[in-house]
């Protein structure tokens, strides 16, 4: 009978634990590309081959191949970096990449535009900074996101420690990474690589699909706990961590027109004690490894395994492998998914002014760069060189200058000011905005995102003014395709690219990230988006109940029906 497995399964199987022909490919100087199969394998090493889509049109005429380059994604569990590390990353951006640092929606960095001949040196430079890129992409556990800022409270530190522990525990074991990038000696054991030798947990096939883990500390849901395969919610008693609620089965990605694919909010798996958390992560992952769909990658995420097998079955299997039962989920309350911008003091520990300070800086769509009059990259570098703080990346593409002693606050503000970096954002809508990368680097983009959302928000701000909503928190997120990289289906206003200049408009997600949105309009261009939203802003301003969120209002006011579960995402749609 014919092999029904997805192509990637065979590629992984034949790759000698992710080696493929990467070494040979790096040596071929005639092309900036690598072998087709290696396109899939290099992801596990934290990199993607891409090409500059802005210039695709001219290349062949000029007798040039596509403008290939590599995107490199770092693995920084919890997103904490020392000033030294920051400086190293900043150097790499100008030496080997396109001069920008791109904060992602998952608390790490990406470089863009690294050409093949520099790929290895860049990897080595990253590792020299005591960071790596292993498993930042690929069918493995990805970078683990934890509630922003380990220095904010003891619980945040525990969340951070758990995140690091899980990230290490679920890390692939193959020697390929060291061999290929760090010139480590060959350690592949072919005799066993057919079995689970090099990868006791992942084997030769790894997971059916990517696997994402996050850890939240209420009341902040900055990590968007319900958007991920596996999640932990800190359960606190007077600030003391007593245990974790465990969630599974969240995810955003879907395919336009394929109703079998949909974003999904995670379910409650149960409650566990702190010391059980890591083992539970392994069991949840290995059940997905064994149960997950390996024939259709579009249906291979854990969320579909839960849909197909049922939550109870999944829980039972996890408990079987654990050898004990999980507790009943404990109550918790989330207030929102955004980052509180500006200065903030640690929640516990020392008293008064001595408590460390933390400055959350808004970074539009996570792109840290210098442009005339606004030299944010240089500002951060200067701060790093003075060693005034540690750096923490957030799941909202922002940066926290963390652990600042009171006497340095003024200095930091002065430096930022001198570089034209203003702490106040033009509107709360912008402060609560995220856009994915999309064009020109993303190969899957159907429309602009990072390069378009800022101007769209500027245009929407007029409407906000008319309604007097400039200072109201409304969450808006945009992506260039339905994959959902900025978690648009959990935004009160979600815009998802369908075609160049055209977006699907989603409304009605919950401000605290607990409810998905619903399709409101299809293929809307800039003007139509504005025309559709302005009246809703007005209505919201006039008719909202006290404290009513925009996402709840649009449902009460009947613009869209509430999405009660992922598999209802495509149900009762009434297009505007």
């Amino acid at each position, binding site marked *: 009978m014919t092999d029904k497995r997805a192509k990637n399964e065979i590629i992984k199987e034949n790759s000698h634990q992710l080696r493929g022909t990467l070494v040979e490919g790096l040596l071929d*100087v*005639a*092309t*900036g590309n690598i072998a087709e199969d290696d396109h899939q394998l290099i992801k596990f090493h934290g990199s993607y081959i891409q090409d500059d889509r802005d*210039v695709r049109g*001219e*290349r*062949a*005429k*000029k*007798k*040039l*191949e596509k*403008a*290939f*380059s590599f995107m490199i994604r770092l693995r920084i569990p919890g997103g904490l970096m020392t000033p030294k590390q920051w400086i190293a990353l900043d150097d790499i951006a100008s*030496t*080997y990449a396109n001069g920008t640092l791109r904060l992602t929606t998952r608390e790490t960095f990406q470089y863009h535009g690294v*050409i093949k*001949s*520099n790929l290895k*040196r860049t990897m080595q430079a990253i590792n020299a900074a005591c960071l790596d890129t292993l498993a930042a992409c690929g069918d493995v556990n990805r970078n683990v996101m934890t509630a922003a800022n380990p220095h904010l409270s003891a619980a945040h530190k525990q969340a951070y420690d758990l995140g690091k522990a899980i990230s290490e525990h679920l890390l692939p074991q193959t020697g390929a990474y060291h061999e290929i990038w760090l010139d480590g000696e060959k350690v592949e054991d072919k005799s066993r690589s057919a079995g689970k030798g090099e990868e006791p947990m992942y084997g030769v096939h790894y997971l059916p699909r990517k696997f994402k883990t996050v850890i939240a500390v209420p009341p902040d849901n900055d990590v968007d706990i319900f958007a991920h395969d596996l999640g932990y919610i800190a359960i606190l008693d007077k600030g003391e961590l007593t245990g974790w609620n465990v969630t599974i089965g969240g995810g955003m990605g879907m395919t336009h027109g394929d109703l079998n694919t949909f974003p999904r909010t995670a379910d409650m798996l149960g409650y566990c004690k702190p010391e059980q958390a890591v083992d539970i992560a392994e069991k949840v992952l290995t059940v997905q490894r064994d149960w997950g769909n390996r024939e259709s990658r579009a249906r291979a995420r854990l969320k579909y395994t839960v849909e197909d097998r049922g939550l109870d079955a999944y829980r039972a299997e996890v408990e079987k492998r654990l050898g004990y039962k999980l507790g009943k989920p404990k109550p918790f309350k989330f207030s929102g998914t955004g980052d509180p911008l500006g200065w903030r003091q640690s929640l516990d520990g020392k008293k008064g002014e001595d408590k460390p300070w933390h400055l959350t800086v808004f970074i539009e769509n996570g792109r840290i760069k210098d442009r005339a009059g606004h030299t944010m990259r240089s500002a951060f570098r200067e701060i790093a060189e003075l060693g005034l703080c540690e750096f923490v990346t957030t799941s909202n593409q922002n940066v926290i200058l963390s652990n600042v002693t009171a006497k340095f606050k003024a200095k930091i503000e002065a430096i930022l000011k001198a570089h034209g970096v203003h702490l106040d954002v033009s509107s709360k809508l912008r402060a609560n905005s995220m856009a994915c990368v999309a064009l020109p680097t993303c190969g899957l983009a159907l429309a602009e995102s990072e390069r378009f959302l800022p101007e769209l928000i500027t245009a929407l701000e007029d409407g906000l003014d008319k309604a007097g909503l400039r200072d109201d928190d409304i969450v808006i997120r945009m992506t260039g395709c339905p994959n959902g990289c900025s978690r648009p289906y959990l935004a009160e206003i979600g815009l998802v690219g369908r075609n160049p200049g055209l977006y699907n408009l989603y409304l009605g997600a919950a401000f605290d990230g607990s409810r998905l949105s619903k399709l409101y309009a299809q293929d809307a261009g800039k003007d139509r988006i504005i025309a559709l939203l302005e009246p809703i802003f007005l209505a919201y301003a006039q008719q909202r109940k006290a404290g009513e969120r925009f996402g709840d209002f649009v449902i009460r006011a009947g613009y869209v029906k509430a999405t009660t579960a992922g598999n209802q995402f495509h149900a009762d749609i009434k297009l505007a």
Partner: protein
Amino acid sequence: MTVTPLLPKNAPFSPEEIDLLNKVVARTTPQQRSWLAGFFAGFEAAQGSAALPAAAAKPRAPLTILYGSESGNSETLALKAKKIAQKHGLDAKVFDMADADMALLAKAKNIVVYAATWGEGDPPARAIDFYAALMSDAAPRLDGVRFAVLSLGDTAYVHFCAVGKAIDARLEALGGIRAADRIDLDLDFAKQAAVWTEGALAKLAPPEASASGTVVHVDFTGGGYEAEDDEPQFTAEAPLEAEIATLINLNGSGSARETWHVEIATDAAGFSYLPGDAIGVLPENDPELADQVLRAVGLQADGALLLKVLTGYDITTLSRAAVENYAKLTGRADVKKLLEGDAYAKFSFDRQLVDVFEAYPEKLTAEQLLSVLRPLPGRLYSVASSLKAHPGEAHLLVGAVRWASHGKKRKGVASTFFADRRKVGGSARVYVKPNRHFRLPEDGHKPIIMIGAGTGVAPYRAFIEERVELAAKGKSWLFFGERNFTNDFLYQLEWQDHLAAGALSKIDTAFSRDQPEKIYVQHRLWERRAELQSWIADGAHVYVCGDEKGMAKDVDATLVKILAEAAKGDDDAGRAKLKELTKAGRYQRDVY
């Protein structure tokens, strides 16, 4: 040396007859041959045609024609001179300084030298040794030897015709007698060179030895260099007006570079070239600049004059000669001052002719202006195509030359003629400039190593296309250098296809600005030296093309080191080996 007087194949007999005659002639003594010559001459006389008897056939005065050439101009003149020498009853042998030896000078009675100047007043690469020997104390005395020197150069260069001048002086210092005054010629040398050669040879020829009626002076003398008979049909004097079929800037947008792939429709009878040749282009000046120049000297950019200036005259090159002319013409003291001491060097740096006119404005008549200017010289471009692969076409790779100095934007005349002032469908005046010293090996099985940076890659595209057409199986290895991989990899897709098809065996690239440290082709050569050494041991031919200052010098030095290592010797050993390769025609350079 004694030559057996076999009749040449081109003698006016059938091959069979030539064989028969040669059977007899081969065994004849000089006396017998003189008798024969006399007999036939006498016989003709008896038939009425008035001619002296064979006395005319007495041995003729020897002439040594010596040339030092890089791009072939001096060589062409030397070979022409040989033909003319016959008429003057001179027994001429032509020698390339590349493979001539001092001893030959010592033996010589009459010498004509055609010498080009390169680099910054240096002799052509292949002539360096001979030149050094001639200048050294070891050079033989030349008492009584009669000589004449023609030097080729370019007034654009400070050391105009430096080499010719030096050789002329040296021959005299060694006791030689100057039979004709030296002439120093600019790029428009053709006419004056022909006149000078006639005059010089007439002076060198012994008076009594002028050609006689019917004893045809056949050239018996082999020896020296025998020309490929490739006198091109289209020349700088008689170019082909050809249509530009394609114009593409090969550099990706975002590149600092601008390198144009130009395809020219040259489907005219007699327009043929070989890979390694260059195509000459007679450009047109930038109308804006022409306008500035004319206005600077108070002339209207009037139709007829403008056209002349645009198409016929060099209005960019600032040369001493031009300033001298301008000083004479205007009688301006301040312009004269420019020519004193190092004033000229100071002023001329990074300047062009227009700067003089604007700094020292004078009203000129059209005639006066033209008298200051030199004819617009053609520009050479290594042909980037194989005629076999692209019949009726010639492809060029033209790097746009642009810079700014003294508050002016400057443009290279020919390169921006293509880049800015011509569109597809427009025309260009072109001609073929053969280069016998940059050729694929006769034997298609011989490996070739092609080293080039930037536009220096042009001839290699032609080489590989040619080898594909000839189904030549020899290995090939390209070393290519430029600034950035992504936007400056000239002809990248074509190299990929050639690699896939096996027409190109290997490629190594050096992109200088992709990483913190600069990487150039010579660094790649050094990295790959082991394999290079074995290729060369296997008889590989090595080619270098492109910028002299920027690349060729360093490549040369690196090859010396690589060969030295292979010979387990020092740099001198390496240099000696490289010389061997050069003499064997296995190290060829096309640098500019």
